[in-house]
C-alpha cells in the first residue's frame, strides 16, 4: 500500500543523458547573425500589420504571411522589464548574478531578451537604484564577433 513506510531507505539509480543535435538556424536568423558581425541589427517587417520583428521572423505569426522586408533597427531602446538573477542551475549560459532584460529597441514592435551589464552587480540594492523599467539602454558590441547573440556583448544604461 502507498501509505506504508518502506522498510529500507529507497534506492535511487544515478543516470545522465546526453543527446547531440544539429539545429538549423534558417535563412533569416543566419542573416541576422551575419549582420551582427557588422554591428548592424536587422529586423523583418510584416507587410500586413507593419510590425517589425526581432528576432527577425520569416513570417508573421498573426497575419500568417511571409515577411519580405528587412529594416535596420536602432541600437538604443527602452527597458520593458528586467530580472536580477541569483539563481544557478545546470546548463545555464550566464553565470549569476546577471540582469536579464527585455528591451524594446527603437524601431521595433516587440521586446528582445538580452542582458544589462557594465557595472558592479554584486550589491542588489545598488542595482535597483540604477535599473528601472522604462529606462533607456544602448548596445555595447563585443570586440570579438562570433555570429551569435553575444556579438551584442550587453546593453549599457544610458544615464537620464
Amino acid at each position, binding site marked *: 500500500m502507498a501509505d506504508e513506510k518502506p522498510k529500507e531507505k529507497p534506492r535511487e539509480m544515478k543516470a545522465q543523458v546526453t543527446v547531440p543535435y544539429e539545429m538549423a538556424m534558417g535563412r533569416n536568423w543566419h542573416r541576422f547573425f551575419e549582420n551582427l558581425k557588422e554591428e548592424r541589427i536587422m529586423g523583418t517587417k510584416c507587410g500586413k500589420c507593419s510590425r517589425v520583428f526581432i528576432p527577425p521572423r520569416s513570417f508573421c505569426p498573426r497575419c500568417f504571411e511571409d515577411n519580405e522586408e528587412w529594416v535596420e533597427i536602432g541600437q538604443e531602446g527602452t527597458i520593458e522589464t528586467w*530580472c536580477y538573477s541569483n539563481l544557478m542551475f545546470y546548463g545555464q549560459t550566464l553565470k549569476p548574478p546577471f540582469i536579464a532584460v*527585455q528591451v524594446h529597441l527603437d524601431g521595433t514592435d*516587440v521586446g528582445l531578451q538580452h542582458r544589462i551589464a557594465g557595472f558592479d552587480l554584486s550589491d542588489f540594492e545598488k542595482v535597483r537604484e540604477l535599473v528601472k523599467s522604462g529606462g533607456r539602454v544602448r548596445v555595447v558590441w563585443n570586440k570579438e564577433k562570433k555570429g551569435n547573440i553575444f556579438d551584442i556583448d550587453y546593453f549599457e544604461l544610458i544615464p537620464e
Partner: protein
Amino acid sequence: MGRAVAVIGTGQTRHGRRNDVSYPDLVREAVRMALEDAGITPKDIEGVVSGTMPSMMEGISDTHLYFAEALCEVGKPVLKVESCGSTGQSIAHCGFYWVASGMADLVLVVGMEKMFEGDGQATMSTVADPWFLKPFSAGAPGVFTMQAMEWMHRFNIPEDKAHEAAAFISVTHHDSALDNPYAHIKIKIGMDEAKNAPIITYPVRLLDVCPTSDGACAVILASEEMAKKIGRKPAWIRGLGFRGEEFFYGESNKSIWPSATEAAKHAYEQAGIRDPLKELDVAEIYNPFTYQEMIFYECFGFCPRGKAPDYVLEGKFNRTGELPCDPSGGVLCTNPIGASGLIRLAEATLQVTGKAGARQIEGAELALSHAMGGIDQFNGVTIVGAKL
C-alpha cells in the same frame, strides 16, 4: 452542441518527494484512487489519455508506452496529449472532446511528473530556443519575475504593496495546504517570514515560489447517460478554453496576458458566466508564483486591471472571502508539473461535489480550474458545476 460531460471520479497521490515508489507505481496510485472514487473497474474504461510536461525531466520519452499497465491502457484506445505546464488542462480537454464526440462513455485522464528524478530548472530552460531565449534564461523564476516587473510598471503598482500582497497570498496558501492531505509543502508561516524570505530573482522570494514535486492525478470523465447510470455525484463540465501566444516572450504583452484572458472568456461564454467574481464560488488557479496569481485574477475578470493587490489585501480571495482562490494551497505548495493542471480540475470537482474535506468551501456549486504553460505562452481553463 455536443454531449454533456461529467467528472465522476478523481484521484491524487500524496505529493512530495516520492522515491518510495517507481514512476509507474506513482501513476498507478492515482489511477487506482480515481477508479475507486468513481466506483468502476479498469474494464469499464473505454479510453485513456495521459500526459506529462513533455520534456527531459525524467529522461524518458513517450511515457504512455512505459505506463501501459499503470494507466490501464492495455487493449484500450489511447491518446497522448501534452502542452507543457498546461498539460493537465489539455488532457482534461482531450477527455472532454473524446466523450463529447460520442466515441466513448468513460475516459480516464491522467497527468504525472516525478520532478525529483531530474533537474527542474535545467529542464525548463530547454523550452527556450538555443539562439535567442536560452542564453538569458534565469529559469522559471526569471520569466515570472520579468512578467511581474512589467505588470507593476504598467499599472503603477507600488512595489511595497505588491510585495505585501504576494506575502499575504503565500501565507494564506501555505495555511490552506495544511488542510490538504495531498499537499507537498506543509508549513505554517507568518507575514514577516514570507516578506523577508531569501530573494530568488527580485522581487520574487523563496516563499513566493512553488516547489518541485513528484505526483500524479487521475480524473474519470463520463457521458451524461453513464454518469447517471453510475450514480455518483458528478461535476459537470460547463465551459472550457485554451489559448496560446507567440513563442518569443517579447512579442505579446504579458502584463495583460491575452492567452489567459481569452481562454477564460471562451470558457465563461460557454458556461454563461458574466460576472465571474459573483458567479464563481471557488477558483483553482495554476499559481507557481504569488505575483503571477495576481495577474491571473485580473485576466480572469475577478478584479479590474492593476487592482489585484488591493483585492488580495482586502481578503476577497481568502477561503472566507468573496471568491476563494486555491483553497487546496495550489501549485504554490504542490507542483508535479504534468499533473498540476489536472489537480486543479480534481480540486474544483471535489469542491462542487462537496468532497473537499477540511478545505471545503461551503455550498460551492461553480468552480474554475486552470493551468499555464510554456514561457508564459499557454493558458487553459475548465469550469465545472454541480448542476448541468
